[in-house]
């Protein structure tokens, strides 16, 4: 048993991080917040880098990798708050022409009845008739609501990839909190020297690392129940870590200028997608 990243997996993760930090750094994120629209050029670049075709067999023009590798890539997307219907387009690679290459943007009707990025997508999977726009809490996830929703067939994989994004966000907000706590001075010392702040940060790391083990293991086994559990813990880690990060930032954390609220709002959105906490808990209980 070697439940650690292989050298290839490490390289893949580092490569995706480099690509995304270069192409969607903080300035790009804030620019996107100011004028939300789907960056088609970025979408094609992701396609060229194999982000959408990652799990497509090489014979079909894909990269031929598995769920663990997809999870690592989506974790990195979650770190930088990469916007767009990433999971839906990834899942459509191989069945929707142009999805794999990133020339076509695909969105899904989620079982919650929510449809993200509807007006920007070329293809909608599921029945979006009667869709009404909502005033989305997340400035970077435009949402529509449909009256009746049927879950997509790849529900478990969608939930896992969403959980991976949550994991990336949870790890990133931990770093943000630790960095701020090391810099911000109060009472003549960095606030990170105070146990009250220190313990918030420690719990953030614990949440992120427990979620990491669950998400990575679920990617290896592909087990439905394990995926449900991983999503539950990753949702928790992303939402609660963003809240704690906001707390560590104090008044600054409550401003629009700080990125913390963007992580929290996206975490709330992702928590609604791919099945609710109540559903996951019922499923996990029924299996006992």
């Amino acid at each position, binding site marked *: *048993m*070697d*439940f*650690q*990243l*292989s050298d290839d*997996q490490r390289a893949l993760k580092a490569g995706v991080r480099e690509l995304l930090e270069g192409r969607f750094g903080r300035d790009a994120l804030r620019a996107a917040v100011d004028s939300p629209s789907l960056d088609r050029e970025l979408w094609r670049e992701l396609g060229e880098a194999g982000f959408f075709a990652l799990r497509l067999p090489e014979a079909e023009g894909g990269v031929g990798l598995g769920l*663990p590798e997809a999870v690592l890539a989506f974790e990195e997307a979650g770190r930088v708050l990469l916007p767009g219907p990433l999971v839906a387009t990834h899942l459509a690679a191989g069945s929707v022409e142009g999805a794999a290459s990133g020339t076509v943007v695909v969105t899904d009707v989620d079982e919650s009845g929510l449809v993200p990025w509807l007006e920007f997508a070329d293809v909608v999977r599921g029945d979006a008739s009667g869709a009404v726009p909502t005033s989305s809490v997340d400035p970077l996830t435009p949402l529509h609501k449909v009256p009746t929703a049927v879950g997509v067939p790849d529900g478990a994989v969608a939930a896992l990839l969403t959980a991976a994004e949550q994991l990336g966000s949870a790890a990133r907000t*931990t770093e943000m909190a*630790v960095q701020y*706590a*090391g810099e911000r001075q109060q009472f003549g*010392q*960095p606030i*990170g*020297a*105070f*146990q009250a*702040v*220190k*313990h918030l*940060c*420690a*719990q953030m*790391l*614990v949440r992120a*690392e*427990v*979620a*990491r*083990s*669950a998400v*990575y*293991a679920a*990617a*290896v*086994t592909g087990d439905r*129940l*394990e995926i*449900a*559990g*991983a999503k*539950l*813990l990753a949702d928790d880690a992303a939402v609660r870590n963003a809240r704690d990060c906001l707390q560590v930032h104090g008044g600054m954390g409550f401003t629009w200028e700080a990125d913390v609220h963007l992580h929290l709002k996206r975490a709330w959105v992702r928590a609604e997608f791919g099945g609710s906490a*109540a559903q*996951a*808990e*019922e*499923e*996990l*209980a*029924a*299996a*006992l």
Partner: protein
Amino acid sequence: MDLTYTEEEEEFRARLREWLGKVLPGLPPKPDPADWPARRRHDAGWQRMLYDAGYAGLHWPVDAGGRGATPTQHLIYLEETERAGAPYVGANFVGLLHAGPTIAAEGTAEQRARWLPPVLCGDEMWCQGFSEPDAGSDLASLRTKAVRDGDEYVVTGSKIWTSHAEVADWCELLVRTEPISAEVPKHRGISWLAMPMDAPGVTIRPLRTLAGSTEFAEMFLDEVRVPVGNRVGDENDGWRVTMVTLSFERGTAFVGEVVACRRTLGQLAAEARKNGRWDDPVIRRKLGRLNAELSALWRLTQWNVSEAQASGGVPGIGGSVFKLRYSHARQELYDTAAEVLGPDSLDLAREWNLDRLSSLSYTIAAGTSQIQQNIVAERILGLPKGR
């Protein structure tokens, strides 16, 4: 990332499982927890069986008399013995998981030859003399002093939370060989001694826990003479010697327990279905969440073990992350058990209720949750030291 076990690992598991299946049915029944001599006999008997079958000191290095097993094999051992309902390490805990590995890592050849074999075969048992009434979480401020007198140290002071003191032959004792001063900060000036428990001047007073048991004791040391040759490591270097092995305590001590908790969770669900509590969605959802939590903790264990294996068998600091989350999950599990039991949660004769009481110690023992959070914040996250 791979969660499958290698052929060798599966072979090891199969052999162990076969042996457990053969020997466990013939094992004497579990002794009365209050009967210490019986507990000692029971724990020593089990250790002897492990020794004879070649499973003693599985994770110890070969040159210390161990089997030099990989961390993964050790994980399999803990998983299988728990699954089969084999006895716990019991009163052998300190010898096998703490004092033994310390002597193996830091002792002289003579010290290893004197103390390690009897630990492995169950002939001698150890207890831990670290904490003091005024030095618990702040362990380095301990005050029990050892004054050199010829070839002996004369030890005076008191210790507390000394588990299994009543049956121990030896105590791994931390003493102050230099008083704290401007020149000697508190982490210096500490030495690690092997103290014979039958030495004149050693008095033991059992402490009763809130669960009603006498798991540990207070120990009073009145001019106890300990040979200088019983010091492991250099004089005043005891803190470093201790830190060498403390990570083992957090790294592997709870592995079998996670397996046990998952089994308990299954039994809880069965009980809830039987007594009607299953119809309450709040209870159901709690059980479901615990299922996710305990599965994740098992995966985290595998993650930490794989990491230790990659770094040459040394458990990393991930043990603190695990211990923090596990200790709370265990308390949550037994609190949920009480909800499932309803009024029966007040009946100590019913299953789980004593475990519920015992679980309260998990966020305190082996480094409180607050200390673990400091460790995580300072040593993993690099936050500044402070108050």
